[in-house]
């Protein structure tokens, strides 16, 4: 189609599209009353039954405080609704702020930074999420039920691992763990509508394990991100802790039948690997709530360590900055392979040579400069080096240019760090210059050459080594005026 779109054209189309997307009059007028949030389809009578039954069967289920929050009373104190009373009737013209009462956990890991604790509401608006989940167990086997509005289930794909039953007022989706499909079908056929509970499974040996509504109530959520992340990567691996209402976690055992029992924070739970490589760990917190720990695929190899790092904490404790941000530390590098010859004027003998592989573990974050893993630009600087002050900003500007390859990995080696010298420590110095990307910091002394610098043949600072896709040195440059755009153009 159109191969010649320029920046101005694409920006104009972007503006037009977002103008159209955000055009509704609903929010065009500042100062309107808080808008209505959609109401759920469950009847009040059903939820009264759910609330009462939850107390009877499970014990203390998440107490939900619904706080009216229009403009005139947003400052009011939240009102906790005892779970033994019918839910507060919410005026459908007002929005709600939902509060969650639950046990809470934190991850003690020096290289993960905790974000703000927030409340995650579920499955509202255009997201057709499940409304009610129940789980029964008999020994190590489970049967779970998810109730959807009557009609086709649109947000899941029933398959060989599930059983669907169409009821008069709802569609019921069953999953199981430890059962054959026939056994699941037979049990699902026994589930009937209850009086004290939404549904009951009147089978000897089977008891209700968990129940929750997955729309309306909230869960506390806190996301952790690695301390050292690549700011140029659009993918930020995360670990997410949540706790609150049961949302069908046991379904995961049926959907991903590699579940393994684990102990998390003193509670029995399971860990399950999803198809995308992520790991979900969940456990019953014993107070009617459930907690989950979702670990992105990139961090999945640390699952067992992260599980061990989960501890229960006082939910009234401050949640921001409770995990100390450690000193980024200094790497003790491992250097493998033949070191490059020292850089000198004239023809560079290192061009075409294979540079060494540098490995370091910085604050728990492994960083490797491996010539066999694609093109690399290694920039060696020192915080006390006056000629290095303009190098980092020049490099950052070059990275933003059209000339800079997207797949070129850039690592700054802040070497010869020396306390007492100008701009110490290196981490602060680089951050002040705008660099928060891949960084190796090594100790030494002012005027000394660090090991990594020597391995690349640096004869002074700043110093840059460009390694090509074939794993050999393309060029090396030295001095304050390194032209990074011209350098990477050699690739």
């Amino acid at each position, binding site marked *: *189609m159109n191969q010649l779109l320029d920046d101005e054209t694409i920006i104009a189309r972007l503006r*037009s599209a977002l103008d159209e*997307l955000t055009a509704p009059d609903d929010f065009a007028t500042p100062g309107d009353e808080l808008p209505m949030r959609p109401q759920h389809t469950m009847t009040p009578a059903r939820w009264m039954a759910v609330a009462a039954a939850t107390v009877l069967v499970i014990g203390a289920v998440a107490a939900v405080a619904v*706080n009216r929050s229009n403009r005139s009373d947003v400052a009011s*104190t939240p009102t906790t609704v005892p779970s033994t009373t019918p839910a507060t009737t919410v005026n459908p013209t007002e929005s709600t702020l939902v509060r969650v009462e639950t046990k809470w956990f934190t991850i003690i890991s020096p290289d993960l930074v905790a974000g703000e604790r927030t409340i995650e509401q579920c499955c509202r608006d255009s997201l057709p999420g499940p409304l009610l989940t129940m789980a029964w167990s008999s020994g190590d086997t489970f049967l779970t039920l998810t109730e959807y509005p009557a009609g086709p289930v649109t947000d899941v794909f029933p398959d060989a691992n599930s059983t669907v039953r169409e009821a008069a007022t709802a569609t019921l989706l069953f999953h199981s763990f430890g059962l054959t499909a026939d056994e699941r079908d037979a049990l699902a056929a026994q589930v009937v509508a209850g009086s004290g509970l939404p549904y009951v499974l009147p089978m000897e040996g089977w008891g209700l394990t968990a129940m929750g509504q997955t729309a309306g109530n909230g869960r506390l959520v806190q996301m952790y991100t690695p301390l050292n992340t690549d700011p140029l990567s659009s993918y930020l691996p995360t670990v997410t802790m949540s706790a609150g209402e049961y949302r069908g976690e046991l379904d995961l055992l049926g959907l991903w039948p590699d579940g393994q029992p684990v102990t998390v924070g003193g509670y029995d739970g399971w860990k399950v690997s999803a198809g995308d490589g992520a790991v979900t760990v969940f456990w019953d917190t014993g107070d009617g709530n459930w907690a989950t720990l979702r670990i992105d695929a990139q961090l999945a190899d640390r699952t067992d360590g992260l599980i061990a790092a989960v501890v229960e904490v006082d939910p009234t404790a401050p949640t921001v900055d409770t995990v100390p941000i450690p000193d980024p530390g200094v790497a003790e590098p491992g250097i493998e392979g033949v070191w490059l010859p020292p850089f000198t004027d004239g023809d560079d003998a290192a061009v075409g040579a294979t540079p060494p592989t540098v490995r370091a573990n910085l604050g728990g974050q492994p960083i490797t400069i491996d010539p066999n893993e694609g093109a690399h630009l290694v920039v060696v600087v020192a915080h006390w080096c006056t000629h290095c002050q303009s190098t980092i900003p020049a490099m950052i500007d070059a990275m933003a240019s059209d000339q800079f390859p997207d797949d070129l990995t850039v690592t700054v080696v802040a070497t010869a760090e020396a306390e007492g010298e100008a701009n110490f420590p290196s981490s602060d110095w680089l951050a002040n210059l705008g660099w928060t*990307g891949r960084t190796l910091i090594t100790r030494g002394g002012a005027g000394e050459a660090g090991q990594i610098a020597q391995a690349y043949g640096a004869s002074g600072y700043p110093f840059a080594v460009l390694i090509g896709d074939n794993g050999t040195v393309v060029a090396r440059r030295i001095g304050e005026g390194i032209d990074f755009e011209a350098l990477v153009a050699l690739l």
Partner: protein
Amino acid sequence: METGTLGVHAGVTAISTSTTDFDEFYRSHRADAVRWATALVGSPEIGEELAQDSLAAVGRRLSTLDNPAAYLRRTVVNRAASWHRWHIRAVRREARVAAGQPTTYTQATGEMLAALASLPYKQRAAVSLRYWADWTDDQIAEALECAPSSVRVLLHRGLAALKKEIAE
């Protein structure tokens, strides 16, 4: 006013702020917050929710914030990012279901929204907030918690990806 502390209810973040101050802030920032959030998630309904939650978060801390507007920007961007992470599967499912179905948008808008939806979140946020919402690089950097130079990289890559998506 307390901020970020938890009241007598376990796990409950108490709300205690000046209604008058919050009223004024709410009136002057609500429309922008909803627009930003809508652009970041691609849905007016979800955008409304995220904006309301973000405004409520500002309200809880209003008297202790030096720059509530900046805090609001950051909160909207962060909550939209969180929403993307939590609902990416649902988004993809809906995209598959909606593929080929008529929409209420013009074809050009539909193409661009689909292209935006294909971008990694940070690129989407950068190009939307810079070229449509007219945020500065510094404001985007603060919201995305990265260096301004990184924002320029995101913009460059985001525009390039949009061109590629639209051209295909």
